[in-house]
């Protein structure tokens, strides 16, 4: 095992790796260097260096959504053997493995998941007499939203990211964008159902359309004229940072089901760590040793959750009472426990190198559906056709 290894990451994730760096070096020796980048810079740089076969760090962060494209470069190390040797596969939430696996080989160790919740402004809901606790289905969600005055939206559907909303809702229903043989499947009954649901929410007049991550988005969330935002567990950290003065006014609830008793678990976002194939075996072993320590031990995953809100994919961490702690920002609600219950039930999903085409097609066609130009059926059909045309894939 080499004595040192470098790990690349971005934003808070890199900071979280930095935090578990010291305890690792104390317990296992070795010298780990964590380098922090901007997200798009890191992706471009890492991919170029992986493709050129030189200059890549031992380990790096990878979003699940990019997994297919990165694995496809042939520059990532197959870590299946090490995962089996350590016997840790079943310790991670099962929904994570699909995108990381190709032809029976696994190319990454899961890090965090983004169990989805509706983050909502409890103060505004109470002011208008909404019964948020009683909501189970989308119909009920819309009915409560209709009690709000015109200038207050129950839900924001971001026009720059219809795809994010669609994917989250599609996955909740167990939808898969590609069939096993790789055919495009985004015009399935399931996808149509999601499109109809988004359209129904819009037509009921309970939605706003503000671009996500824009400052208007934050300011409307701060003033309470957008009551709820569907997002991954990590949104709490972002809201804390951006609209900290609304602390205590927020709560979370599971995303609405399609029918009573339906699944209410899905995912938005999440990362993994990969090892570059070009580094020596000795360095790769050191990187793996660090990864296993950082991502596959209860203590370190709880630390990352507490310090940076990264929600573990590593299930044993959920035993910690850190997840039962009430969050001050969420008015004392123990959201961690709710997310820990959601995570193991997240349906699996698949990504391919053509996932970006799906993003583009869904965004534009659902946009035209929302504006009334297309029916839901036309929108999903056109999106599927567009992806099939551009990628030479078959339609399912």
């Amino acid at each position: 095992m080499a004595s040192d290894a470098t790990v690349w990451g971005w934003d808070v994730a890199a900071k979280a790796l930095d935090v578990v760096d010291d305890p690792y070096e104390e317990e296992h020796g070795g010298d780990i260097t964590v380098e922090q980048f901007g997200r798009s810079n890191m992706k471009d740089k890492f991919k170029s260096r992986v493709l050129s076969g030189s200059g890549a760090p031992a380990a790096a962060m990878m979003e699940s959504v990019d997994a297919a494209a990165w694995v496809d470069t042939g520059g990532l190390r197959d870590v299946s053997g090490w995962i089996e040797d350590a016997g840790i596969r079943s310790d991670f939430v099962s929904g994570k493995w699909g995108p990381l696996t190709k032809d029976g080989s696994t190319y990454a160790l899961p890090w965090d998941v983004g169990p989805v919740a509706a983050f909502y402004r409890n103060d505004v809901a109470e002011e208008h007499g909404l019964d948020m606790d009683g909501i189970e289905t989308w119909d009920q969600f819309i009915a409560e939203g209709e009690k709000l005055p015109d200038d207050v939206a129950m839900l924001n559907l971001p026009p720059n990211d219809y795809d994010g909303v669609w994917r989250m809702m599609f996955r909740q229903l167990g939808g898969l964008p590609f069939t096993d043989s790789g055919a495009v499947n985004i015009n399935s009954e399931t996808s149509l159902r999601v499109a109809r649901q988004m359209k129904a929410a819009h037509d009921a007049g309970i939605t706003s359309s503000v671009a996500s991550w824009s400052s208007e988005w934050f300011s409307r969330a701060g003033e309470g004229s957008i009551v709820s935002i569907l997002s991954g567990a990590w949104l709490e950290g972002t809201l804390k940072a951006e609209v900290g003065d609304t602390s205590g006014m927020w709560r979370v609830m599971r995303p609405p089901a399609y029918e009573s008793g339906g699944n209410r678990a899905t995912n938005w976002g999440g990362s993994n760590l990969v090892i570059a194939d070009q580094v020596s075996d000795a360095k790769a072993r050191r990187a793996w040793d660090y990864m296993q320590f950082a991502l596959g031990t209860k203590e370190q995953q709880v630390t990352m959750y507490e310090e940076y809100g990264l929600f573990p994919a590593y299930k044993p961490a959920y035993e910690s009472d850190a997840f039962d702690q009430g969050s001050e920002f969420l008015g004392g609600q123990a959201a961690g426990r709710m997310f820990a219950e959601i995570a193991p039930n997240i349906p699996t999903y698949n990504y391919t190198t053509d996932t970006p085409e799906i993003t583009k097609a869904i965004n534009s066609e659902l946009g035209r559906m929302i504006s009334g130009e297309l029916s839901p059926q036309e929108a999903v059909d056109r999106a599927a056709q567009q992806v099939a045309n551009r990628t030479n894939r078959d339609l399912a």
Partner: protein
Amino acid sequence: MGSVTRDEAGWRFLGYSFVLLVTLLMIVPIYWIVVASTLPEQAFLSAGTDVRLLPGSNFLANLDALQARESVDFVQSIWNSVFIAVVYTLLSLVLCSMGGFAFAKYEFKFKEPIFYSILATLTLPIQLLVIPLFLLVSQMGLSNSYWAIILPWAANPLGIFLMRQNMKQIPDALLESARIDGATEFQLYYRIALPTMKSSLAALAIVLFLFQWNLFLFPLVVLEQGKYTIPVAINELIGAQRVYYDQIMVAAALSIIPLFLVFLFLQRHFVSGILAGSVKE
């Protein structure tokens, strides 16, 4: 004024109006970057409600926030960019003018095929070259050095082309008589050809400087933190969940200044240099 008819005056008015309009189109975004760099982020991003067109007083605060960033040393990146662009421009001027002189004034085997193959490399997009060039510079032991960015395009095909076109204008008789007077071939290039090329060189300098100044992907892949050029440093400000527009605006506003100075310094040569050699007499 007597010779200017009403018609001509009308056309002239239209012409100037058009030029003014285009100028405004060019200037407004730059003006807005400068204004935005002096405002708090909320003030210039709040969607359309009240558009601020006058500078505010938040410039230093934005600058402080920019300098407080951990993964970006912006002051260092200005120095990196200036050093790389200046050295590159000077080196490239020498190589391009020598190459252009050779192609314009000497006869040698395979001259035309060589020239056109150099010209053909203009059609290769940078994205295609990044990985091979990265391998090349790392095998030369140059990765993460300024030279890794300066050398690959030092013999710039566009520059060689421009210099060749311009140097064709130099009368052969002039070079011939200098030869008879005992000038060496290098003296022909340095004493006779170069002095007549001042405006072309100035124009080329602007083009080369701009090219290097705006290079993004290659420096990103080749350089490590601390050696980043300005475009790479600015891109560091785009995070996963947050884009720091206020800091980006300050960085962008500051990054215009060196370009502005270069252009100001060389501008009177610019137009005449670009036009030189474009007409065959």
